[in-house]
């Protein structure tokens, strides 16, 4: 036991110098707590989604199971899903058909392990970091694992031997590949600023350098859009577009195997929200307080920071549902053009600009602090105005009603006037 801890210590100097026994026990406790909170959170999220959806549509939502709030609705849904009959389509390739929900579910569960959720807890065995696995490659791990989730979806679509399921799986893979790149690119400015890929370091950097959403708004915007696309949520739910593909990749699934897909979607939502909070909203950093990332730590600070972290994450989960009932689904060409023709060039040029600014500031000898952050913030303001006020003029997404060039318009109008169907139309 002792030499494992010693090896871990050598591999990652950031690990606290707790004893091996304490390390293992505390890790186990953290695993159990995080897993429980995560799964219960995903279950309650199904209820929250239905409730918020209902409120936005001027309805009440579930209010029968477990009192007026419908609190036991997730439990009832779970029981229902376990009781349902498992069906296997005759033409499905069974081994992969069974494997696919598992492949979708496990990456969704795994990623949360590297997200820090609170200030370190001082105990008599040393400082316990509030993170399940304090990986030195933190953020890279998330990028690697979260893109594995697409295998579950693609294999589900393929093994179902159903054309709609296959189309859903293909769309999902195309979408994930397109947005994975923008997502990775959008976080590079954050990593440049923090100088590290460990999520704890990123949180600490934001605790004294200002939240990244203030300094790197465009990176946040790209990350937000990409996170929506990665989790297959509206307006990017093309893989399961009901009006076109029945249910998309999970058309042929039933009972708990079906249920694993929505559960992993909700888990991905939680992870993406937690990641947005960590990368851009200061993680567990308590707002309007300075230096809560350095000691002295206390149990109360840990508790407060966990509550703050959960509150921030809940806001983003609400945001997901809010957007769902605001924006309609993209057309497939809009999805691709937004990903490749707008977000990727924007993310790349943003990396260049931010890297240049950081290089300039560093070589000018400006220390990280208020001055540094305000210069970054000023640069950011200019860029935000550029992107949101000038670039956003029918160019972000090509809508069917975008202004056409005069010659195109004349050609379309003359074609329309020649059409036999528009005979007698005045316009």
């Amino acid at each position, binding site marked *: 036991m002792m030499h494992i801890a010693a090896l871990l210590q050598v591999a990652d100097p950031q690990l606290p110098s707790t004893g091996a026994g304490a390390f293992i026990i505390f890790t186990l406790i953290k695993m159990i707590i995080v897993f429980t909170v995560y799964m219960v959170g995903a279950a309650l999220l199904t209820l929250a989604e239905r409730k918020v959806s209902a409120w936005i549509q*001027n309805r009440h939502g579930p209010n029968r199971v477990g009192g007026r709030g419908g609190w036991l609705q997730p439990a009832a849904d779970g029981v229902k899903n376990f009781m349902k009959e498992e069906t296997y389509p005759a033409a499905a390739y069974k081994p992969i058909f069974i494997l696919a929900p598992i492949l979708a579910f496990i990456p969704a569960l795994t990623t949360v392990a590297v997200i820090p959720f609170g200030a370190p807890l001082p105990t008599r065995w040393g400082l316990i970091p509030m993170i399940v696995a304090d990986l030195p490659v933190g953020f890279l791990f998330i990028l690697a694992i979260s893109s594995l989730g697409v295998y579950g979806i693609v294999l589900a679509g393929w093994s179902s031997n159903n054309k709609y399921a296959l189309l859903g799986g293909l769309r999902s893979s195309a979408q994930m590949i397109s947005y994975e790149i923008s997502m990775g690119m959008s976080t590079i400015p954050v990593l440049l600023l923090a100088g590290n890929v460990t999520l704890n370091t990123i949180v600490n950097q934001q605790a004294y350098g200002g939240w990244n959403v203030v300094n790197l708004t465009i990176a946040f915007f790209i990350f937000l859009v990409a996170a929506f696309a990665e989790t297959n949520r509206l307006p990017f739910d093309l893989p399961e577009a009901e009006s076109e593909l029945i249910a998309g990749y999970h058309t042929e699934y039933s009972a708990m195997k079906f249920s694993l897909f929505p559960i992993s979607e909700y888990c991905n939502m939680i992870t993406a929200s937690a990641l947005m909070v960590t990368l851009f909203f200061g993680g567990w950093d308590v707002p309007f307080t300075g230096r809560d990332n350095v000691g002295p730590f206390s149990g109360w600070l840990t508790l407060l920071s966990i509550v703050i972290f959960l509150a921030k994450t809940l806001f983003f989960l609400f945001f997901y549902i*809010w957007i769902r009932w605001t924006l309609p689904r993209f057309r497939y060409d809009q999805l691709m053009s937004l990903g490749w023709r707008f977000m990727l060039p924007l993310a790349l040029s943003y990396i260049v600009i931010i890297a240049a600014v950081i290089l300039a500031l560093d070589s000018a000898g400006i220390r990280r602090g208020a001055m540094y952050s305000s210069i970054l913030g000023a640069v950011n303001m200019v860029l935000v105005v550029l992107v949101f006020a000038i670039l956003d003029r*029918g160019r972000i997404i090509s809508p069917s009603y975008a202004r056409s060039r005069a010659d195109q318009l004349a050609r379309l109008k003359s074609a*329309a006037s020649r059409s036999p169907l528009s005979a007698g139309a005045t316009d």
Partner: protein
Amino acid sequence: MPIGVKVLDRPIEDVSYIRATIKGMGLTFKHLFADKVTVQYPEQKWGLSPRWRGTHRMLTTETGKAKCVACGLCPTVCPANCIKLIPGEDENGNRYPLVFEIDEFRCIFCGYCQEVCPEEAIHVGRHYENSEYSRAGFVYDLERLTSQTHPVCEMWDPEDPRGE
């Protein structure tokens, strides 16, 4: 085949996607706190129109017998052919229905039977909660029809077209 396409030339401010999104989010957020329109069905119910035509009811005389005189007008007028009537006659020469059955599955709830009835005996009712455990339960016999208590439909009156 070419179709007539209406080509819109919108002003450039209208195609700002982010502005439109924020506007839409404001709208949906307002709806979060708006009054709810749901009617909590088993506890709350909508009132029915006085001319609602639901499952039938046979009215009775003071002595508790069905008002029906088995004249045979309602099975004749019924467009769905859902009324089964076998007339009988007692020792005083009064006609009464030996069998009077309405198959509510076949019925199209047109209300002709109520309109045509000279004795105002058969009525369509203001009622919609009709679940049964078997299909046979939907063939209402005379006993079932007379024991129903729900209010009956008020037929449209040409003198009073708005029902006032």
